[in-house]
């Protein structure tokens, strides 16, 4: 990743135009040719630097639901538990963290009712208590990270 790639990532985290020739417009702002922007963006997607290039939807407005959940996975069962939890398509993120509650994951479902169903299924399959910590209030979200 060189400075031009960084410039592209930073610019595209701020948004992407919805118009007939959006890459040309972004390329002009970055003083690149349209083809160069397209080639570099493809390479960044292919080599895994970028997860995805497209829309981010608002879960609640889509009719869906999200929650943050955690379990206390015993050390000797850690890999088994993470395999069970990651196998759920409803689990979007899963992180090991340094605490007794050592596995933290986000559950995203199409309807609010499915959150509880997913939690019940995880409890049943793991035999662990799932701590459910849905959002009460959002104070700040900024997912932009300077490349």
């Amino acid at each position, binding site marked *: 990743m060189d400075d031009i790639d960084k410039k592209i*990532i930073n610019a595209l*985290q*701020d*948004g*992407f135009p*919805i*118009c*007939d020739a*959006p*890459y*040309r417009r972004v390329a002009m702002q970055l003083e690149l040719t*349209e083809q160069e922007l*397209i080639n570099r*963006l*493809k390479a960044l997607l292919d080599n895994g*630097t*970028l*997860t*995805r*290039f*497209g*829309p*981010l*939807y*608002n*879960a609640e*407005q*889509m009719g*869906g639901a*999200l929650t*943050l959940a955690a379990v206390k996975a015993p050390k000797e069962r850690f890999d088994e538990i*993470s395999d069970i939890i*990651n196998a759920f*398509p409803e689990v*979007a*993120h*899963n*992180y*090991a*963290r*340094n605490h007794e509650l050592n596995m*933290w*994951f*986000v559950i*995203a479902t*199409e309807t609010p009712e499915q959150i509880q169903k997913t939690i019940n299924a995880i409890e049943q399959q793991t035999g662990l208590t799932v*701590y459910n*910590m*849905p*959002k*009460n*209030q*959002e*104070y*700040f979200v*900024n*997912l932009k*990270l*300077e*490349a």
Partner: protein
Amino acid sequence: MIEARDRQLLEHIQLGLPVCSKPYAEIGRLCDMPETEVIERLTRLKQQGLIKRMGVIVKHRQLGYRANAMVVWNVPDNLIKQLGGHIGRFPFVTLCYQRPKQPEWPYNLYCMIHGKDRATVLKQLEQLVDACGLSSFDQEILFSKRCFKQRGAVYKNTAVTHG
């Protein structure tokens, strides 16, 4: 409810925009919609907030952000809104939420700090605690150790943020 034509469009772009000179025309071809209609519908969906943002989703570890701390506090209910607002004004904070307390987990205010290394994150946290007057509240710092899974949440056919 979301209109059927909008839903069709959202499903087609969820996994990514085409990387070619006329991406919206390309989506139109897939959905059997003229390019102008694709542009009009997406512009409206963005204005309505259903599309939060169009652009790249980065893997923060790939950009060198290896230290990711979730910091939690137990703060009185009557102070939480003010504290949440204050915390969100720090440039290194990526998320700040109120969540319900649990049995054996008495925390209600959550914030995330993404940084290149732990020492930097801890220094930023110290600055935050001082400036917001958080030092008298119970606090825990949970650094991420391993990322097992990171993807945009997929709603049957549609991706969403964890917002």
